[in-house]
């Protein structure tokens, strides 16, 4: 087996620097007049890109706020109740309207702390709901009238204000 080539002597503390940008040490010419015109076009493009981004970001955000958000009602008829702390908006819908003897499905979401949906008249309670882990409650609306839907988990000092209404009509 042949001997590997001898390594250069390394000083005790120094390590051979890993040079990421090498330099040649030679004088080089960089004049190029045609580049001025190119740069004006490039500048305009760069500026346009920055302005586009600065405008598009808020515009897109607000335009898609609802579209990408959670719909009030899914295609299959399930209601979505999004719970937020009372000082951040409370329930996403203040009133849900259903028909008598309809099978009601409600998916309960929490957007910040822990919430839960309770409709005491129908004995419905979702239990604690965490962010990103919605829970579904299902029941039959077999009585006509207006019923209170409240938050079932003490979520904040204003927890008692987190109320919505369920209206069952003929």
């Amino acid at each position, binding site marked *: 087996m042949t001997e590997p080539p001898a390594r250069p002597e390394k000083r005790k503390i120094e390590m051979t620097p890993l040079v990421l940008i090498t330099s040649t040490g030679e004088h080089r010419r960089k004049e190029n007049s045609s580049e001025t015109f190119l740069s004006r076009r490039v500048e305009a493009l760069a500026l346009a890109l920055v302005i586009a981004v600065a405008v598009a970001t808020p515009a897109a955000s607000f335009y898609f706020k609802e579209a990408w958000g959670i719909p009030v009602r899914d295609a299959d008829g399930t209601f979505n109740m999004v719970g937020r702390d009372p000082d951040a908006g409370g329930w996403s819908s203040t009133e849900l309207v259903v028909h008598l003897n309809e099978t009601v499905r409600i998916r309960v979401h929490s957007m910040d*702390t822990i919430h839960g949906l309770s409709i005491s008249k129908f004995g419905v309670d979702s239990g604690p709901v965490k962010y990103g882990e919605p829970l579904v409650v299902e029941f039959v609306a077999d009585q006509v009238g207006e019923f209170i839907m409240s938050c079932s988990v*003490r979520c904040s000092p204003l927890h008692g204000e987190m109320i919505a209404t369920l209206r069952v009509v003929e």
Partner: protein
Amino acid sequence: MPRHRTLQPIALLTFAAFVVTPLAVAGFAGAAHVTAHHQRTIEVSLFQYGMDPGVIDVEQGDTVTLVLNATDVAHGFFVDGYEIDVHVVPGSKVSYTFEADKAGHFNIRCSMNCGVFHPYMLGRLEVRENWNFVLAASAAVGLTALALAFSWRGAPDTVPEGAPKT
């Protein structure tokens, strides 16, 4: 008999006894749970934004029952390293029992978003090794070593010929 020849074994034995032994016993005790077991029940209240007591002190090997009580809003009780994750809602206390078999320092965190300063709602579980046992055990071994060394200190290495065997 020259004194230094008997001093070396004494020094070595004492060193082995008092340094190596405690370490070995501590490790063994930790691994085999050879410590006194106590039953402890500790009431912990959880609130925005902390716990009371902030530091839970128990001994290794104890059977600990925590009675968790959320006083204002829903909180979580998550203990690093012990894989405890309990949800506590105001109005219903939760009892959780576990064996404190791992010694050390374990952070306790709130695992249910409880409000604005939720990330800073922290506590600590301290599981102390039973040093009394470790110290006593090492003292026992150390004393044994000293006693032996003391007893052998004047003894010659070989029995001289003709001397009566004792």
